[in-house]
């Protein structure tokens, strides 16, 4: 199963959630749906209406920037990265 790696300031919002999870899904959107099923509320933190990935969030599949439709293989590593932004 693909592995999802989450940023620390995201898991802090869901106490007890590990930063690495193995989740089912054939693409990024399915994977994030599995994440929300495991940790309810994750969907709203990472996606906005559309659905679209939030403006200051990036998802990488095996090191390449991805969108919701990007395929995910059983050995893939998916990073969720908050943008370097703010002041």
């Amino acid at each position, binding site marked *: 199963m693909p592995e999802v790696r989450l940023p620390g*300031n*995201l898991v*802090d*919002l869901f106490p007890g959630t590990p930063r690495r999870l193995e989740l089912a899904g054939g693409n990024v959107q399915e994977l994030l749906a599995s994440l929300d099923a495991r940790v309810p*509320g994750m969907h*709203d*933190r*990472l996606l*906005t*209406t*559309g*659905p679209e990935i*939030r403006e*200051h*969030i990036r998802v990488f599949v095996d090191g390449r920037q991805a969108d919701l439709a990007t395929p995910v293989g059983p050995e893939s590593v998916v990073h969720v990265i*908050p*943008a370097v*932004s*703010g002041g």
Partner: protein
Amino acid sequence: MSRVLLMVGTKKGAYLLDSDEARRDWQVRGPFCDGFEVRDVSYNPADGAVYAAATSPWFGPAVFRSPDLGETWTHSSAGLTYGDDGPKLTRVWSVTPGHGRLYAGVEPAGLFRSDDQGATWRHVEGLRGHPSTPDWMPGNGGLILHTIVPQPADPQRLWVGASSVGVFETTDGGETWTARNRGVRQDYNPGPPAEVGSCVHKFALAAGTEQTLFQQNHCGVYRSDDGGASWQEITGNLPTDFGFVMGVHPRDPQTAWVIPLTTPEKGRYTPDAKAAVWRTRDGGGSWARLASGLPQENAWLSVLREAMGVDSLDRAGVYFGSQSGQLFASADEGDSWREIASYLPQIASVDVTVLAD
């Protein structure tokens, strides 16, 4: 002995300050909702929880809930959406208890309600169904619904305020809404004042009244004795007609507080670099300058619309916070002031509640 809980929303999280009813010594706790910009923090007496209207630059808008006065927090955005076909909801700006439920004001301007202590939300669609909606334009702070005033004795009646749009009232629980801006100047509008397009900054219901409202507008200070159907200007002897906050007394319907600021073109800070709160005791007939204990030189303070709170003790405590992170408190209805925190992040909101120990 009572405990006073001061709730402060800032650009970088929420802070809680505790004191006894003497209100001399304050303990600061926080930041909570870390990483989120917190525009409003409220206490809900119905469930004893603290709620924060918060938005993260990464993770979007959410309402946080603490059931234990800040020890633990959860959050939810479930239902805080205009749907996939609607505009994107960019910020949650205000959270207000009333009528046994919670209301949230958001950007772009709209109203949501929760009947389950913030776990889920649903859109009060009637407001954005108002025929004026296509004409709503954002102000400097955005197209935000910032003020929510439930009529305590009537669960069907509610007023809301949105910047650059105006005041609206519902008397049927949110199904239909009426614009309530007659008599309010729109100096920036070259035509006659329109039904909407009024830049309300803050308004509040006078204590114990059915429908007396005080309003600080972009263009003056106003009073309405008919629930907003008509407004009378009470700017009177205030040094400027511009400001953001509006505080009202917990028991005396004739007492209110404002903080006049220089006009938008002149910086929006305390005039002459001297901090002062102004109080009326006669329903807006006249205003008295209150500055004892406030900085009187080199004080270019700017105070945002949610950044004044009034407690329910006798005498009432009044509190305000600045964009430069200072928090001031008065335990005697504004007669004297003390700076109780000096280095908070940019303060967006100040609310207060009195808890039985």
